[in-house]
């Protein structure tokens, strides 16, 4: 049974919500701006709504139903304790602009999380309000720009290694920077000499992902930081892969000036089909004064205060405001619950298990698949390229779609761009050995079939998914982004 769109239930004039019988007045005081055309949106009864979305959900893959080894996305277990505490009315049912005296617990929580983030990263300050990783990058780069401006230093270039997340150059460009690419070495890492050679008084910052998107820890990161600092630039680190190193090394000890932390990745706030995330940014001494508004201050016995406006004569010189209100409180609660549950020992263990699992997957597959950068151990994710498929006419995409038929979510494919036909596998620390073994065995079986040239198994895959391969080209060429009544296509599809 195919589930229609809500607009196709044919009940536009109904509603599934009862409201208190109102003292609704006849006379409106809307200044004459009342709606003339009634809203053409269907209202489904509660049983219909429940069934519609339950049915839709069942065509989704999820961590709770199987391994989700999407490299760079860190799909780990989402503890339900965190969902439970995030729903405590004292944490969920409070308004961002209530008197500060009535939200002392909320401010304490933010202050506590800030402390954990600072200690875990070894950096002295943190901007809590960014709403996601890319927003955090923007925040960090804004702080860098503000810091240069404060020195009257109008630098115009940002260096980005070619293995960077696409958000890095996009962020730099948004702030008017010219992006220059730093090529990678043969072994997949960044050469400090290459950085040094690109350095000039025009360079505002280097944006480096570490561990990088090939899953490698940059061995020369301290050298690189030095090169950056010597040129008067700042070192921005993309912290998306912090899960690999938490508790093993502090970015502050590596010379990082700013790093965003994807709370939804490292600290497991649920991904929710694509958000919400949260991207606090830790900052070095040099950048701390420029952190955006608002922030929480502890006044010891007198409790906590919230600074929402820059005051004259302060030492701080906030560069502005990233968003209305104080950040992703709902995600703060979950992230802090995850951190407290693990503790410093568990956080370190989680990183170690994530790295161990990735290297285990690599060890189990490297005889069959090609590892483009064999000289370094992998961190929390292992990168393969499609070298092992050259003699077949099977592609990375085919492998991914065939994995779907075997009941698995595929790895990240065609990212990073630095290798051909990339397959990036991140098992995370949440998988049992049995789960890894099953995944590995399945993938081995597929790779052998591919090498054998068993095209039939791949060409039509996926066969057993809710949908087979979808026509993405037409979708982009003639975009249909919104349901329209009596549109011929819609009728045909019913």
């Amino acid at each position, binding site marked *: 049974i195919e589930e229609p*769109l809500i607009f196709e239930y044919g*009940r536009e004039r109904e509603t599934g919500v009862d409201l208190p019988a109102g*003292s609704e007045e006849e006379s*409106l*005081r*809307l200044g004459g*701006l*009342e709606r003339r055309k009634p*809203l*053409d*949106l269907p*209202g489904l009864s509660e049983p219909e709504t*429940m069934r519609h979305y339950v049915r*839709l*959900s*069942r065509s*989704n893959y*999820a961590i*709770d139903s199987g391994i989700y080894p999407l490299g760079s996305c860190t799909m780990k277990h989402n503890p339900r304790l965190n969902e439970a505490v995030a729903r*405590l*009315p*004292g944490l969920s049912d*409070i308004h961002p602009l*209530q008197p500060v005296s009535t939200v002392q617990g909320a401010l*304490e929580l933010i202050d506590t999380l800030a402390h954990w983030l600072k200690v875990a990263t070894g950096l002295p300050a943190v901007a809590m309000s960014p*709403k*996601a990783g890319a927003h955090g990058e923007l925040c960090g780069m804004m702080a860098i720009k503000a810091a240069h401006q404060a020195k009257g230093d109008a630098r115009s270039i940002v260096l980005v290694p070619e293995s960077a997340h*696409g958000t890095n150059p996009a962020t730099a*460009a948004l702030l008017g920077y010219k*992006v220059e690419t730093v090529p990678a070495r043969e072994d997949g890492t960044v050469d400090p000499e290459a950085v040094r050679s690109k350095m000039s008084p025009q360079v505002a910052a280097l944006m480096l992902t570490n561990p990088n998107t090939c899953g490698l820890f940059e061995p020369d990161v*301290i050298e690189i930081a030095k090169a950056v600092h010597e040129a008067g630039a700042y070192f921005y680190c993309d912290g998306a892969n912090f899960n690999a*190193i938490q508790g*093993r*090394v502090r970015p502050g000890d590596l010379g990082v000036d700013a790093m965003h932390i994807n709370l939804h990745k490292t600290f497991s706030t649920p*991904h929710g*089909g694509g*958000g*919400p995330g949260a991207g606090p940014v830790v900052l070095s001494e040099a950048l701390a004064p420029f952190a955006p508004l608002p922030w929480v201050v502890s006044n010891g016995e007198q409790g906590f205060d919230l600074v929402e406006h820059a005051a004259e004569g302060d030492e701080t010189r906030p560069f502005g*405001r990233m968003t*209305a*209100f104080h950040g992703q*409180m709902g995600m703060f609660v979950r992230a802090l*619950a995850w951190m*407290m*549950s*693990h503790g*410093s020992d*568990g*956080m370190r*263990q989680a990183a170690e298990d994530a790295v161990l699992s990735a290297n285990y997957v690599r060890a189990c597959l490297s005889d069959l698949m090609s590892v483009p950068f064999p000289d370094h151990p992998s961190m929390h994710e292992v990168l393969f390229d499609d070298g092992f498929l050259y003699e077949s006419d099977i592609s990375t995409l085919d492998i*991914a779609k065939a994995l779907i038929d075997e009941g698995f*979510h595929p790895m990240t494919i065609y990212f990073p761009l630095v290798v051909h036909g990339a397959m990036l596998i991140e098992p995370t620390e949440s998988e049992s*050995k049995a789960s890894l073994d099953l995944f590995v065995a399945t993938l081995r079986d597929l790779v052998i079939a591919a090498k054998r040239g068993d095209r039939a198994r791949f060409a039509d895959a996926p066969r057993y998914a809710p*949908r*087979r*391969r979808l026509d993405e080209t037409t979708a*982009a060429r003639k*975009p249909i*982004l919104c*349901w329209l009544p009596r549109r011929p296509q819609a009728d045909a599809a019913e």
Partner: protein
Amino acid sequence: MRYLPLSADDRAAMLHRIGVGSIDDLFADVPRAAWLDGPVDLPAAKSEIEVERRFRRFARRNLAAGDAAFFCGAGAYRHHVPATVDHLIQRSEFLTSYTPYQPEISQGTLQVLFEFQTQVCELTGMEVANASMYDGSTATAEAVLMAHRLTKRSRAVVAGNLHPHYAAVVETTSRLSSHDTVFLTPTPEGGEDLLSAIDGTCSCVVVQTPDVFGHPVDLKPIAERAHEAGALLVAVVTEAVSLGLMVPPGAQGADIVVAEGQSLGNGLNFGGPYVGLFATRQKFLRQMPGRVCGETVDVEGKRGYVLTLSTREQHIRREKATSNICTNSGLCALAFTVHLTLLGGVGLERLARLNHARATRLADALAEVPGVEVLNKAFFNEFTVRLPKPAAEIAEALAGKGVLGGVPMSRLRPGEGLDDLLVVAATETNTDEDIDVFASCLKEVLA
């Protein structure tokens, strides 16, 4: 540790398979100088019982809206969310899935986004919408950048009655991107003059309705003037429920409509996560930031959905992307869509009417308190009162009596002579008793 499935035996076997002697060997690339030999200086692992206890302690130090007579708004509104919504967003398949990169096994999320986009279009009166933004304020900043791209101008005019936080976000982005922005002065009594600020150098004019003081704004003349000047009208809505009763910006000539969607499906959550709505005209589609979901067919001809128009996005275009935005507000968008599916057009209109009726009753009740002046002739569910004392003090005093009685304008715009203004909102969650308690406490506090 309850979250870590690997046993000591497993770890040993895996290290053996990898062929290294210890876990340290896998961290060999980390410079020895930065190597931590043990855990960082934070407390050790805690049991579930202890963690829960700790968070209950955090929670107890806050006054939950449900335990007060509650009238705060100014960009975040307390509405009743049907229990069905929370049940559905907690479905494992929605909660623990990721961005639908593999559409064949993500049709659930994708169809929801398609429904979301359609609902947003109908609500705002626009033609295309994206699959959500972080929140209303960041959506506003993105709208200004989009207008710059479309008009190839870089000067925005921002209404003085735009929510000050929203204005600050626009200002920050604008300043650090070296764009020019004109911020007008607030007009607490409403009737702000925007027309005279618009000229041929503007890329857009940014107007909120109802504005931060609660005044509904007639966008039509502003749109006309903007279009004459070759500029776009960016309409901002912070209370999505208002769209159930008020003429949609799309019908008044807006070119981009951004809104905070929190009111539908989402709780207050001390300010986040929320869900930004972003809608525009079909012709501007290719410059619209953010993810979009589109309809297509699979190889068997079955209807299906995919993320599309990715050529605008950072993972394809890198530094030439329309925006650096990567994630959306997926789960909050789901909550929005489920709530709106339950309501339907009829239900949203009734809900909006009830909100308006509650606010009307509240305005009448407060107007009778000696010394209180209601500034608004018109409003939706929120309005501004002028008090004989600083509003921040009054709000504090009211909180002491269990009344969260609104947002002092000085909290949003300190030092601008607006200290006697209090912005108060009422929704369907307010009973007659709440309103009476508020009015009588206010009387006491002012006495």
